[in-house]
């Protein structure tokens, strides 16, 4: 169970590295939003699942069940809330009049 936690946390860090590179290197607001929305949600879900697997070596019994339920509640909330926040911010950019990046624009 512990090794699964190690693997999940490492994979989540790799996805967050992709998010960081995309957020720093992409040329446009919409493309940065694309990198931030997807990679951030997936890496957070994977790292929190790894935290459940690692906490099974510290806590046991009914405490572990309660802890896993609480972390699953956070995962459920992030899985619903993060794309909604991303959509709201992209809607704000669209209403403020951001034009998408094209290859021949400057």
């Amino acid at each position, binding site marked *: 169970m512990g090794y699964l936690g190690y693997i999940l946390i490492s994979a989540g860090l790799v996805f967050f590295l992709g998010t960081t590179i995309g957020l720093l290197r992409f040329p446009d607001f919409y493309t940065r939003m694309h990198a931030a929305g997807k990679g951030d949600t997936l890496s957070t879900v994977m790292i929190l699942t790894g935290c459940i697997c690692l906490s099974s070596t510290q806590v046991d019994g009914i405490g572990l069940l309660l802890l896993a339920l*609480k972390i699953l509640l956070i995962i459920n909330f992030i899985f619903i809330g993060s794309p*909604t926040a991303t959509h709201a911010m992209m809607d*704000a950019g669209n209403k403020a009049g951001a034009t998408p990046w094209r290859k021949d624009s400057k």
Partner: protein
Amino acid sequence: MNTFITAAGVALIGLMLLVLIRAIKGPTVIDRLVAINVIGTKSIVLLLFAGILFGQLEMFVDIALGYGLLNYIVSIAASRYYQHRKSLEPEHSPGGSPVS
């Protein structure tokens, strides 16, 4: 296990500092909003790492849950606020042309 969690937390803090570069120099307000949302989401993960390191995960999970709810509300409210403003002009050049 503590060594691995410490190393993962240090790597996470380094990547969050790289995201903070985008929050500081981002040309528009909405770029800063995206970067702050990413940093706030990763702070939940960092709180859980601190809980595992201190051996008190039951307390830190509640703090992380409250922080996640607060971060979501801040993102929604700020995006509703800035969509009516001229939020796409860079702040350092007043009267400048909008970013294309």
